[in-house]
């Protein structure tokens, strides 16, 4: 089942903008390592799921993963070969709108080399530039 909200106020939404930088969710909170977005992005639920699967397969039940974004923005699409008009298309998928600086994934409970490799694999599933963050240990 794709990631999407359980309840929404309205079925369809306008596209909105991806300007500025992430004012919140831009630091590590749960884990010791994280993947930080460097570009404005619209990340689909399938891409988030692919990144999650890449990490969990590599970690093999070691450590813990936190996904810090959620696809709560519906995207509509008109059927192929349809003429213009007849209203807005049906919802085709859901996207998370994320601004530069946003931490997408966090990993904890594993050593640095494992976390870095897992996040590197996940970064290939997100079609935007990203970098790996590490918590400065006290």
């Amino acid at each position: 089942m794709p990631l999407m909200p359980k309840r929404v106020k309205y079925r369809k939404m306008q596209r909105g903008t991806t300007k500025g930088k992430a004012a919140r969710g831009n630091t590590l909170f749960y884990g010791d390592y994280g993947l930080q977005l460097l570009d404005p992005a619209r990340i689909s639920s399938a891409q988030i799921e692919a990144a999650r699967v890449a990490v969990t397969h590599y970690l093999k039940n070691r450590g813990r993963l936190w996904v810090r974004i959620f696809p709560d923005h519906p995207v509509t699409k008109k059927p192929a070969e349809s003429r213009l008009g007849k209203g807005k298309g049906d919802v085709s998928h859901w996207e998370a709108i994320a601004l530069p600086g946003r931490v997408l994934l966090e990993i904890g409970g594993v050593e640095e080399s494992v976390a870095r490799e897992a996040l590197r694999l996940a970064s290939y599933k997100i079609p935007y530039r990203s970098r790996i963050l590490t918590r400065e240990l006290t």
Partner: protein
Amino acid sequence: MEEILFQAEVRETTGKGVARKLRQAGFVPGILYGPGEEPVALKVEGKSAGTIVRRLRSHNIMADLVLKGSAGEEKIKTILKDVQKDPLTGALLHLDFYRVRMDRPVAMEIPIQLVGESVGVSQGGILEQELREAKLEALPRNMPDRITVDISTLGIGHALLVKDLKLPEGVRALDDPERVVVAVLAPAKEEEAAPVTEEVTAAATEPEVISEEKAEERRKMKEEAKQEEAKE
């Protein structure tokens, strides 16, 4: 606790345009506030402030502020209350200083440092630090710069709570005593994919729309009202 010193000057002008120009000129805009005193807008010397902040292991530290004003130079005891940074470049955007009185207790968030190798981790458990900074109250001179927690005896399924923290004399924890600081979780088991029935997937492909529910309710109410009118 090592002495941390920020160099700052009083600034008369405020606003985002002014703040941007200050940053370009190598300063960091800031503010000094505290109980019983009017807030003072500052411009902090950027290069040294950047070096200090980069080395910090906690955002909430005791710091001295050397403040140059019209009345001359003044050294003020403060807490670096908030540090605003650019999320991408890490450049300092703004600093908040809280003026402290040495005879009054202050509340600060102090980092928790874990020491030792946990027994549970060597058995395959996952160490999870739930609380990285503890909120403490103490007189400024008694405030520790970190709290060390020995986790070597922590087995799988065990947790250390805020009430278990060994605090120096005169220091009080403000967090909930039952709050978990660090725990060793059992390793995750292989998840078995539950058989998904078609009914569930069909219902789950679309979220529930609140506006449509309300519209439906309104339509029903209108119809009922019309029917009642027709009866009368």
